[in-house]
C-alpha cells in the first residue's frame, strides 16, 4: 500500500476530492498547513511597518491507497490541482506497511 501526501492550493480541495472519488478513493484526511516554496508570499502593512509573509496557506491531503491505484491517483490530483502557476504544490509518495480500521479491526486493503 502507498501513502500519498499532496500539498495543494486551498480552494482546490473540493475539486480534488471529487476527482479522487471518481477513481475510487473513499477516504481522505485533510490538514490546513502553511507552505514555503518558490511561490512568493505577500506583504502585510501595519501602521507603516511592512513585512513579508512567506508562508502561504495550503492544504495537505493524506490518502492511503493500494499500490495498484497509485498512478491513477497521482493523475487525478495532477489534473485537477494544476493551474500552471507557481505554488500548485507537490505530491509525495511513501510506502505503507500496514493499515488498521479501528472500528472493525480489519487490516490492510480491507481497511482502506
Amino acid at each position: 500500500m502507498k501513502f500519498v501526501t499532496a500539498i495543494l492550493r486551498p480552494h482546490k480541495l473540493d475539486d480534488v476530492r471529487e476527482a479522487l472519488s471518481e477513481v475510487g478513493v473513499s477516504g481522505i484526511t485533510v490538514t490546513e498547513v502553511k507552505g514555503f516554496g518558490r511561490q512568493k508570499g505577500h506583504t502585510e502593512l501595519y501602521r507603516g511597518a511592512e513585512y513579508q509573509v512567506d508562508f502561504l496557506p495550503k492544504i495537505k491531503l493524506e490518502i492511503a491507497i493500494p499500490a495498484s491505484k497509485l498512478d491513477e491517483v497521482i493523475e487525478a490530483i495532477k489534473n485537477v490541482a494544476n493551474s500552471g502557476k507557481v505554488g500548485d504544490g507537490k505530491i509525495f509518495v511513501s510506502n505503507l506497511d500496514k493499515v488498521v480500521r479501528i472500528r472493525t479491526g480489519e487490516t490492510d486493503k480491507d481497511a482502506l
Partner: protein
Amino acid sequence: MKLLLLLALMPMSVFAEEVVNGADTAWIMTSTALVLFMTLPGLALFYGGLVRTKNILSVLMQCFAIAGIMSILWFIVGYSIAFSGDNPYFGDFSNVLLAQVSMDTVNGSIPESLFAMFQMTFAIITPALIIGGYAERMRFSAVLLFSSIWLLVVYAPITHWVWGGGWLGNVLDYAGGTVVHITAGIAALVAAIVLGPRRGFPKKPMPPHNMTMTITGAAMLWVGWFGFNGGSALAAGGDAAMAILSTHIAASTGAITWMFYEWIKFGKPTALGTVTGMVAGLGTITPASGFVGPAGALVIGFIASIVCFNAVIIIKQKFKIDDSLDVFPVHGVGGIIGTLMAGIFASKELGIFSGQGGWDREAIVIADQLQIQFTGVIATVVYTAVATYIILKVVDMITGLRVNEEEEQQGLDIISHEETGYDL
C-alpha cells in the same frame, strides 16, 4: 434658551449650586456610561487585538484591573486631590471617601455624586491608555502598583491644575487633551523606554493577532467619545451638541486622511491605519472639542492624522522605541497639537473656521491663548515625564518591571494569569 443656558453655565452663583437639572443629569449619566464603555470593552479590545495571541488576556485583564483599582482609589482619595481645596498645585483631603458628597450636593447643574462618577471614568481610561506602551512584557504586579501611584501622583494633580481650580485653569482643555492624552502618551513613552523593547523588536514582526477585535474596539471608542467630549459640557445643550459634531468630524477626517496618506505612501489603505487615524483625530480634537466648530474640527482632524502618522514612523523606525501600541505618537502627539490648535480654532475671527461654544469666546486673542496653551503643554509634559520615570524606578525596586525572557516567550496569559484566550 438664553436663561436656561445661563443657568447651566453659570459658574456657581448663590442659587446655582443647589439646583439639579434633570436633563443635564440624564445626559451626564449617559456620558458616564459611554466613557466607561470606551475603556471596557472599547480600549481593551482595541489594544487586545493588536498584541499577539499569547498576551491577549493580559491586556484585557490589565484594563479590567485598572478599572477596578483606579475607581476605588478615585473614590478614596483621587477625587479629593483633584477637585478639593484652594492650593493651585494639589487638592486637599477634605473629600476623602467622598465624605462631603451626599444625595443633595450639587455640582453645577448635576448631582456631585454624578460629577465624581463621570470624572472617575476619566481616571480609569487614562492609566489604561498607558498599557499600550508597556504591553506584552510588564509584570502584572508592576502594572497595578505603577498605575495606582501614577493616578495619585500624576493624574489627579494635573487634573487639579487644569480642571480643579489649579494654576492651569485658563488653559483651554475641554475634555482632556492635557489631562488625559498628553499624560498618558508621555507616560507610555517613558515606560517603553525604561522597560526596553519587547524581545525581537524591531526585527521580528509582531502583527496584530485579531484585527477584527481591534476594529471593534475602535468603533466603540468612536461612539464612546461622544460621551467623553459631549459629556464634558456637563449639560445637555448646544454646547454638548456642538462638541459632538466637532468630535465626529475630526474622527472622520482623521480616519480618511490616514487612509489616503497611507494609500499614497505605501500603496494600500489599511483598516488599521484608518482606525488609527480615527483615534488620532479623536485624541486631537479632545481639548478643542467644545470650543471649535465643525470646520475647525476638519482642519484639526486632518493635521492630527498627518502629524501622528509621521510620529508613529519616527518613534518606531528612527528612534527604535518600542511604544508597543503607539500610545505616544497617537495620543501624546495628538494631545499636544490638539491643545495648541484649541488656542487657534477657538477664536471667533476665523470665518467658517471660527470657534463655537457657550463660553466667552470674545476674549480669545490667538497669540495670547497660544502662549497659555503652550505653558499647559510644557508643564504637563515635563511633570509627567519626570514623575513617571521616578515612579517606574520605584516600582522596579519593589516588584521588578519586566517578566524574564522565557516568560515573555511563553506569553503573559499563561505566565501571569494561567489562562489562554482561545480554545476554538
